[in-house]
């Protein structure tokens, strides 16, 4: 549940007096000054150090799907704030604010489209919406995408990027772990393929449910993936964490991932996998 903290490796806009602010970006990882258009053309991957910056669901859809084939489903589902949760601010206000700033209703976009001509169900999480946290709506949308895949005998692809369960929906958010996993249980028995793509960062209840249940688990390089957040672990064991701990490369080494794939190679890998499992 680390969504409340700002991403350390986020983009910083470099203010320059001679040129407009938003044209140049300094890479937070390697320090290189990058022309923003160039970075965008490179799918938001630093051409110098290969750091993969977080991208929106729409950008991932553009990367994966055949042009113009994607259509969104269940766009109108909204949270009801079942606990009437109030911390230092009302959850209802937090939701309103997230809706206004992101233009989305929730932290996941689901839909369907063609990838190399193969129709698949799809979901991608939006970290900018309350840290990509999973409440009732995220759970329901993932569950519906899974059910559609079962009903139409299609594959499912989910791109996870989340701080975990949304604590402002209390026990309802915990139950979404069981709900999504139960749907995937049915899908598994139906012999349909599910590809889970894990993007920086994916932690908590999302990792401990649908993100780790792919027939194929793929991560982007350097992505932080774990159950507990590094800060909680550090507090618990009172010692420093090893270099590279909970990064994609660490998970691959420990057998939790099938592969690490560069964003630029993601589509061709997904296509290959879909053909292996569906032809």
């Amino acid at each position, binding site marked *: *549940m680390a969504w*409340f903290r700002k991403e350390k490796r986020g983009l910083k806009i470099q203010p320059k007096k001679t040129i407009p602010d938003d044209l140049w970006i300094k890479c937070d990882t390697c320090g290189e000054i990058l022309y923003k258009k160039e970075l965008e053309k490179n799918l938001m991957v630093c051409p110098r150090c290969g750091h993969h910056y977080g991208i929106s669901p729409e950008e991932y859809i553009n990367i994966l799907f055949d042009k113009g084939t994607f259509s969104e489903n*269940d766009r*109108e*589902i*909204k*949270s*009801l704030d*079942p*606990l009437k*949760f*109030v*911390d*230092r601010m009302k959850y209802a206000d937090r939701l309103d604010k997230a809706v206004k700033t992101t233009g989305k209703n929730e932290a996941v976009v689901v839909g369907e489209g063609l990838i190399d001509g193969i129709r698949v169900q799809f979901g991608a999480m939006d970290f900018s919406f309350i840290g990509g946290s999973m*409440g*009732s*709506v995220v*759970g329901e949308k993932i569950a519906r995408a899974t059910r559609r895949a079962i009903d139409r005998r299609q594959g499912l692809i989910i791109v996870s990027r989340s701080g975990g*369960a949304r*604590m402002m929906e*209390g*026990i*309802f*958010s*915990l*139950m*979404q*772990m*069981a*709900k999504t*996993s*139960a*749907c*995937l*249980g*049915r899908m*598994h*028995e139906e012999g349909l393929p599910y590809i889970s793509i894990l993007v920086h960062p994916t932690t*908590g*209840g999302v*990792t*401990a*449910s*649908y993100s*780790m*249940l792919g027939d194929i688990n793929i991560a982007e390089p350097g992505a932080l*993936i*774990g*159950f*507990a957040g590094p800060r*909680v*672990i550090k507090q*618990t064991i009172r010692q420093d*964490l*090893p270099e590279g*701990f909970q990064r994609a490369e*660490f998970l691959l080494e*420990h*057998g*939790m991932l099938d592969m690490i794939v560069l964003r630029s190679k993601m589509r061709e890998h997904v296509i290959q996998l879909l053909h292996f499992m569906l032809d």
Partner: protein
Amino acid sequence: MNGTYLDFERPLQKIVQRIEELRYIATSEDLELHDEIGKLEKKLIRLREDIYRKITPYQRVQLARHPNRPYSLDYINTVFEDFLELHGDRQFRDDPSIVAGWARFEGKPVMVISQQKGRDTKEKLYRNFGMAHPEGYRKALRLMKMAEKFSRPIITLIDTPGAYPGIGAEERGQAEAIARNLREMAMLKTPLVAVIIGEGGSGGALALGVGNRVLIMENAIYSVISPEGCASILWRDDGEKEKSAVALKLDAASLKEFGVIDEIIPEPNGGAHSDFSSAAESLSMVLAKHLKQLSRLSPEELVKQRTEKYSRMGEFEE
């Protein structure tokens, strides 16, 4: 009731001590103190009722974690017969924070899978305070599959602060172990009744909790995050745990209202820790009722009932 008293239980402690003193005097001095002791006992009952009626959500959390509260092994030894513990996940090691094995309930074979916190310091360390590693969840799944193989019902007893957050746990795939349990539990072709007996700590509790029925002891809690954790994140101050405990609605009555819990198991006046055997009896009665109901369902109906139940969970509009 002996041992540790929580702050809000202190007034009870004074009366209990006075009763014990009078009993001692009555026997050692051979005095007739029945009336006086009787009065104090009545007063104790009234005071207990009074205290427990006005309990705050955070006090409920304290009760759920009460050091004198019956733990899984206390119930295993009273509710079940012939418990035979089985060990190991067949992959890495045996996790002592999960205690599981065959047992009989009302004479019939069942699989019991439980989380054990540990009573004294030595046992607490041995049981890792009830916080399982991935191998614990994998042992649990192995034994659930065994129960399914022999068509025996599964009963889980949940009592954990959460899944262990550590280096080894992450290396061995804590998230994967929990996720797999959730998926596999949903599909089990045998009855599964989960009982939250104390602390239902987040994903670490849910990993044993995907049941046809989910029951909870009256003073137990079930939450997506501990009130301390929630306070430190949302209030940026873990001292605000009282406020976060209110906001999280983690008590049995709220959970029942939300449809997450099927039935609340009443505890004796003064909480389960004041009377182990009547708490166990209460659990036994409610468990028997639900197992009987589930015994009428076919394996396919059990899977359908369980998956449909979790499919409905969540509150949203469109």
